[in-house]
């Protein structure tokens, strides 16, 4: 066909893509860390025998997981200020992605919690640990080991969701790629390079997770 690839424009703007990638990663790391904390608390609430805890947790997870994240992003950025809550664009995106991650990770954690034998809790009780101590020293660390494999793909999805920040003008990788697109019209070239950056980063995340998994693996 008559189209010849020309990457010159992309290389000229490569540092902008890298800046975007760095921001994407930053957004992902902060949001997912907050999200993991939320998810852990919500997961315990989900399996709680008290409806006052499990019901709101279920509602949160159901609502958030079933909405397109774009709607949440737009809501936080455009509708919240009209209700008096005003976050800047990075803050509001981090808040959304954290809440979104929280819902997904809560489900992941819940599955992990359910797979921990009840006997361990009882053994903890029997030596006089309080329920909180049992959660922090026994259940959470074991659950984390159980869920690491499934967490890896959740985290990759969440990382890719940072691309939605482009919608509210956060200059992350997708935003930068689009900007180069409209400037140069080298759409195909730009996306090839940008997605290579995404793939490489995801591979890195996956490798990192596998490494953590191996590090934490219990000897047998």
């Amino acid at each position, binding site marked *: *066909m*008559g*189209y010849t690839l020309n990457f010159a*424009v992309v290389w000229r703007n490569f540092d902008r893509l890298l800046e975007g990638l760095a921001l994407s990663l930053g957004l992902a790391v902060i949001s997912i860390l907050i999200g993991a904390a939320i998810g852990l608390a919500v997961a315990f609430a989900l399996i709680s025998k008290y409806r006052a805890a499990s019901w709101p947790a279920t509602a949160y997870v159901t609502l958030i997981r079933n909405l397109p994240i774009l709607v949440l992003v*737009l809501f936080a*950025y*455009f*509708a919240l*200020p*009209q209700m008096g809550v*005003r976050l800047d*664009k990075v803050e509001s995106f981090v808040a959304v992605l954290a809440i979104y991650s929280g819902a997904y990770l809560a489900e992941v954690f819940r599955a992990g919690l359910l797979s921990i034998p009840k006997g361990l809790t009882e053994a903890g009780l029997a030596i006089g640990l309080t329920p909180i101590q049992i959660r922090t020293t026994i259940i959470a660390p074991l659950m984390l080991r159980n869920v690491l494999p499934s967490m890896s793909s959740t985290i990759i999805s969440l990382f890719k969701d940072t691309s939605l920040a*482009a*919608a*509210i*003008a956060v200059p992350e990788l997708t*935003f930068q790629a*689009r*900007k180069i*697109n*409209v*400037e*140069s*019209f*080298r*759409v*195909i070239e730009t996306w090839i390079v940008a997605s290579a950056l995404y793939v490489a980063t995801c591979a890195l995340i996956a490798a990192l997770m596998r490494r953590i998994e191996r590090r934490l693996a219990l000897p047998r």
Partner: protein
Amino acid sequence: ASKLDDVLARGHLVLGTGSTNAPWHFKSADDKLQGFDVDMGRIIAKALFGDPDKIEYVIQSSDARIPNITTDKVDITCQFMTVTGERAQQVAFTIPYYREGVGLMLKGDGQYADYAALKAAGSSVTVSVLQNVYAEDMVHAALPEAKVDQYDSVDLIYQALESGRSDAVATDQSSLAWYMAQNPGRYKDAGYGWNPQTYACGVKRGDPDWLNFVNTALHEAMTGVEFDFYAKSFKTWFGKDLPPPAIGFPVEFK
């Protein structure tokens, strides 16, 4: 053979355009594609087949404009494409069919009265713009210190103004005019225009016959036998009556 022959043989034109930007290309309440870009396509269809309706529309996002031309998904794209040298290396632009300038729109009851007030406020002003060629430079040409937020769809730059995320919208004067006409009394023009750019359709490079044909069709709509078509469309979408071209020596050779 030229695309011109292919199109004629096929019996309809495949036109690439968008569907979410009034008054350029958008959908009517009964789901018909309309707008000034669309009318340019209709002019070409009429020149081809004597029937402006012989068009198959390919809806595309801004990102898809060039690739759809280069991979033959469309015969021609008319989608408020700003002509630049860089782009002209990848597609062949037709003669321009509109000259655009950028304007500033403010909230009717907002903090800033006009362009002078915006400029005086310096870096405390945020301007929302559509992701565009050198969007930042463009805003800074008028408001050197203003913060610039770029969005990828027109409705969001308006939304940013509406929700207080930005203090002014900078975009095509034509779009602003349309928007203000749709929402009378809520917004005002800051009264400053700059940054001229021309809009043209794009076709694949390397087919002089086809380019020449399209150019002819557009040229004759702006200066010749199809002027009424062009003028009517202009009136519909921009609300202005065009003076008929002067009779006598063609203005473009002056």
